[in-house]
């Protein structure tokens, strides 16, 4: 297993509160994303645990893109990955943000 931890700048997320949300499942080519409150008011936090070694630069690129595109500061994303492709990772992160923030709208 390889572990990555990142704190990235992002725009402030919609609202406070909200129960933790998990989306996806740990299965081949898939991943689960747990979203909770965490990080600081202007940054979001990522903790990635992946079964595939040596893709730190790709993870960083995907997570930086996500943090720049979505207003997710103040949120912490924890990931258990079983070899998902970058596109699948992006979709799961979007889904996680949507379910967590959507519930607060």
């Amino acid at each position, binding site marked *: *297993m390889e572990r990555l931890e990142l704190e990235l700048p992002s725009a402030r997320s919609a609202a406070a509160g909200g129960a*933790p949300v998990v989306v996806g*499942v*740990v299965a081949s080519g898939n991943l689960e994303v*747990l979203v909770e409150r965490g990080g600081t008011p202007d940054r979001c936090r990522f903790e990635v645990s992946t*079964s595939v070694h040596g893709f730190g630069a790709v993870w960083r690129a995907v997570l930086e893109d996500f943090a720049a595109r979505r207003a997710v500061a103040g949120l912490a994303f924890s990931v258990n990955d079983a070899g998902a492709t970058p596109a699948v990772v992006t979709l799961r992160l979007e889904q996680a943000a949507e379910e967590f923030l959507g519930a607060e709208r």
Partner: protein
Amino acid sequence: MSPPGPPVPRRSYREASARRRLLGVLDPGSFEERLGPAERATSPHLAALGQPVAFDDGVAVGAGALGGRRVLAASQEGAFLGGGVGEVHGAKLAGLLAAALRERPEAVLLLLDTGGVRLQEANAGLVAVSEVMRGVLAARAEGIPVVALVGGGWGCFGGMGIVARCCDAVAMSEEGRLGLSGPDVIEETKGVEELDASDRGLVWRTYGGKHRYLLGEADRLVDDDLDAFRAAAIALAGARRPVDLATLSREHHVLAARLAAHGAAADAAAIWTALGVADPDALALLDADEFLRDVAGTRREAR
């Protein structure tokens, strides 16, 4: 006659995740998860093996309401390691059943989707499954009905297949399969002549919900639909099967009679013919309502 409206879309039980199944079966908004993903009760064995863990170890447990009645419920995630029961996963199931003794809910629902023990943590998993069996029987002995729902992609096999049949009642879809050794295991150990695991029709005839229903091992046969499973769960939540010697003796008697009557049958279809089903070949194509109409009166009482 008014023109038919657009068909009401079914929400597949089989395609839903473990949590979505719980949300669909229980009263809306009633599920309160315990030891949820944020608690990170993950498998130490998988971590030691360098394998990915799941935040909930592949099972969601908690309390909710079912048709207004307070219940405890668990739902296994088949997509995570085939719903395999590891130590933490099993402890969550056993813990839920232990909580039932204290909290006395009106029923316990087990949404099973599992190949049995998780091989990566075999010994701990085996112990856990035996604790779950004991927990089911302890709850039932206290008069708390335990109901199993089987309609996931992995069916319900191994020790958890025994757990399902230890429950007061079982609701299944045709797609949900119930058994002890799965088709691949039988082919591997006994040879392809005994059971060709790649023959999907044979596998479904042997393990599928319709066969289990006709043999009396499943109490309800429902379509692959969340609302249908919910209705079955509501109907079965009050079902009680006494946990006593007389009931067990009767079941043994029924099993012996079944073996005598059908032990030589080479295929489930031969059993259906013997039970009086007019057109066994057609059964696989019928939806639940048509099937139940067709086989009315031919079902055996296994209990």
